[in-house]
């Protein structure tokens, strides 16, 4: 990397991506994620018109043209949604294709006229950050930073407006102006970013980081920080690759890196990722296995009056159908908790284990009784449900159930409901 320009461009693209991710986080929360896509496409005719009218490609002029039609596109979507029978998605699709079509038409005619090759306007389709010169980069980075600063300034009231618009209106907040400010920032950051990643992919830069961050946290501030971080890393990676492979456009590589981040987040995100959900399911299943085993041993003891006796694994398996591996895991876990004693091929409850088993049995029978007496279910329909519910009842609900049932001693099948014991 001998070219000093590289670092400038890299820095500029990273800063722009951070601003885009921050703005995108708010449009995502506003449930207007696709608005960025419409604006990005609406920008293309503006760039072409600015080029045709000015006869050159001064970045500020192109930027002004981009922002102008981008804003017009946004206004079109809002007008269509508000004043016609079209729904939001139809209005978006219509606006996006009409503006983009007009832009493509203009672009083709510019290229036919021979000026296009010199203008290099086609880079606005997919972006070519590497083509930017240092002065442009400084300008764009400065403007991106300005977007970020304005966003930080309106952060507090904007959050209130997005969370509860009606409340914000009644509290006298300048709701319309805040919404317009966010729209303006959206148009502006898209107009800036389009140089680097192109019209087609700009929406991804806005939305993907925020969507990925949502899988890791339930806190707005952390979500913003994470989204900006994802965007920065992806942008750096994308810009780097487009430098290493000189014929490569920047946009697709940035978006590819972002999509990878999003994929990882969906799979492994700590808040609502698939792995976290799987982990929760597994923990629940293990807890259910352990409690079922305690209940099984307790009820075997109920039958012969020896709750703490040692019993053969085969005797347990005969009463409780459970895959051998899960049975072993549950036995092992219970021994670790001091609820179980184990010797060759046999297992028995400790005193604490018997108490725990009696509690599960008690909850099961209380729930069965509740279903029959208060929800009028026949006694032969309540066992299956009680099998599941016994594992989630809290001590508070247990107490409420007991008093509602008037401290019963027998369940609907005339089995005794064990007395409450203090768990050691």
């Amino acid at each position: 990397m001998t070219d000093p320009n590289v670092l400038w461009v890299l820095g500029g693209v990273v800063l722009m991506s951070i601003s885009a991710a921050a703005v995108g986080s708010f449009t995502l929360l506003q449930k207007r994620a696709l608005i960025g896509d419409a604006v990005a496409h609406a920008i293309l005719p503006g760039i072409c018109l600015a080029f045709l009218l000015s006869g050159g490609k001064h970045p500020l002029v192109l930027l002004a043209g981009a922002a102008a039609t981008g804003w017009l596109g946004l206004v079109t979507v809002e007008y269509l949604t508000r004043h016609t029978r079209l729904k939001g998605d139809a209005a978006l699709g219509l606006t996006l294709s009409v503006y983009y079509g007009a832009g493509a038409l203009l672009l083709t005619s510019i290229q036919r006229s021979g000026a296009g090759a010199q203008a290099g306007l086609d880079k606005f389709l997919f972006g070519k950050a590497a083509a930017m010169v240092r002065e442009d980069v400084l300008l764009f980075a400065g403007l991106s930073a300005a977007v970020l600063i304005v966003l930080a300034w309106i952060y507090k009231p904007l959050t209130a407006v997005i969370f509860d618009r009606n409340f914000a209106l009644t509290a006298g907040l300048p709701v319309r102006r805040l919404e317009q400010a966010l729209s303006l920032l959206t148009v502006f950051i898209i107009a800036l970013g389009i140089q680097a990643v192109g019209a087609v992919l700009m929406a991804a830069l806005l939305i993907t980081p925020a969507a990925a961050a949502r899988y890791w946290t339930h806190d707005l501030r952390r979500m913003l920080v994470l989204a900006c971080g994802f965007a920065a890393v992806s942008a750096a990676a994308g810009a780097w690759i487009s430098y290493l492979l000189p014929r490569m456009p920047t946009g697709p590589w940035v978006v590819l890196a972002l999509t990878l981040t999003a994929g990882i987040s969906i799979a492994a995100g700590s808040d609502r990722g698939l792995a976290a959900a799987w982990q929760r399911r597994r923990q629940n299943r293990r807890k259910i296995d352990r409690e079922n085993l305690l209940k099984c041993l307790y009820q075997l003891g109920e039958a012969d009056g020896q709750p703490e006796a040692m019993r053969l694994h085969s005797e347990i398996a005969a009463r409780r159908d459970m895959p051998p591996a899960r049975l072993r895991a549950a036995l092992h876990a219970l021994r670790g908790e001091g609820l179980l004693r184990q010797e060759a091929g046999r297992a028995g409850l400790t005193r604490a284990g018997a108490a725990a088993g009696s509690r599960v049995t008690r909850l099961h029978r209380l729930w069965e009784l509740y279903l029959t007496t208060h929800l009028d279910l026949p006694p032969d329909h309540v066992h299956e449900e009680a099998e599941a519910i016994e594992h989630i009842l809290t001590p508070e609900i247990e107490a409420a159930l007991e008093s509602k049932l008037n401290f019963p001693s027998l369940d609907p099948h005339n089995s005794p409901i064990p007395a409450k014991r203090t768990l050691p």
Partner: protein
Amino acid sequence: MNSIPAIELHSLTVSYDNKPALWNTDYTLPEGVLAGIIGPNGSGKSTMLKAMMGLVQPASGYVKLFGQPLDAVRQRVAYVPQRSSVDWDFPVTVLDVVLMGRYRPGNLFRRSSAHDRELAMECIRKVQLEPFVGRQIARLSGGQQQRVFIARALAQQADLYLLDEPFAGVDAATEAAIMDLLREMRSQGRTVVVVHHDLQSVAEYFEWLVMVNTRLVAAGPVADVFTADKLQQTYGGSLSILSQVGELVRQQAHPVRETPRPPMP
């Protein structure tokens, strides 16, 4: 009791999608009462509150609060929307939401002051959510979410509170706790208006009642208006002609007034 009413509705008509949701409604509500608004589904109860808060524009008529238009007394009025009107998956904490009750046009672009934070904490204590201050609102029960909304309204320190179905989807203990709070507010001279669903508790909860079914059926002290006759008018089928006319108005895009919206006197 003050001679200026807390709420005055004058010939108020509100339409949605050109269909009148509330016809020609007139009443005044005195200051310092705990009042209920009852009526069947779709009878315009929520619309009435929204019109008072300027969230929907009347097709005709006007609302005065404390004898003035809303903009002049905005800081004296707090509104609690229906719980289902927002997305509770929004990534903010209980404290974040309650602090929003302190947002004023003058402090929007600054960090919340220590005084505002203290006040928000006090309101959170009042609704017994202290253990959940830093909890994400998505991880609260329905009753707790409702109490967050009420705490936010308390933080506004208003004189008039308008609550839209605060007991919907709330457990009995929460309902009792909210009711205690509302009574306490009333005893401090505040005016509290509650859109309510459960007829059984009307006489126990409220001293003033507004009965509505697209038009006003009655408004007055509970003892005077909560009668079998009025209930029949509110919930019975006698208003079918009115709703038929409303449907006609919508279908033909017909105006509900020949000259829309005369200026407020």
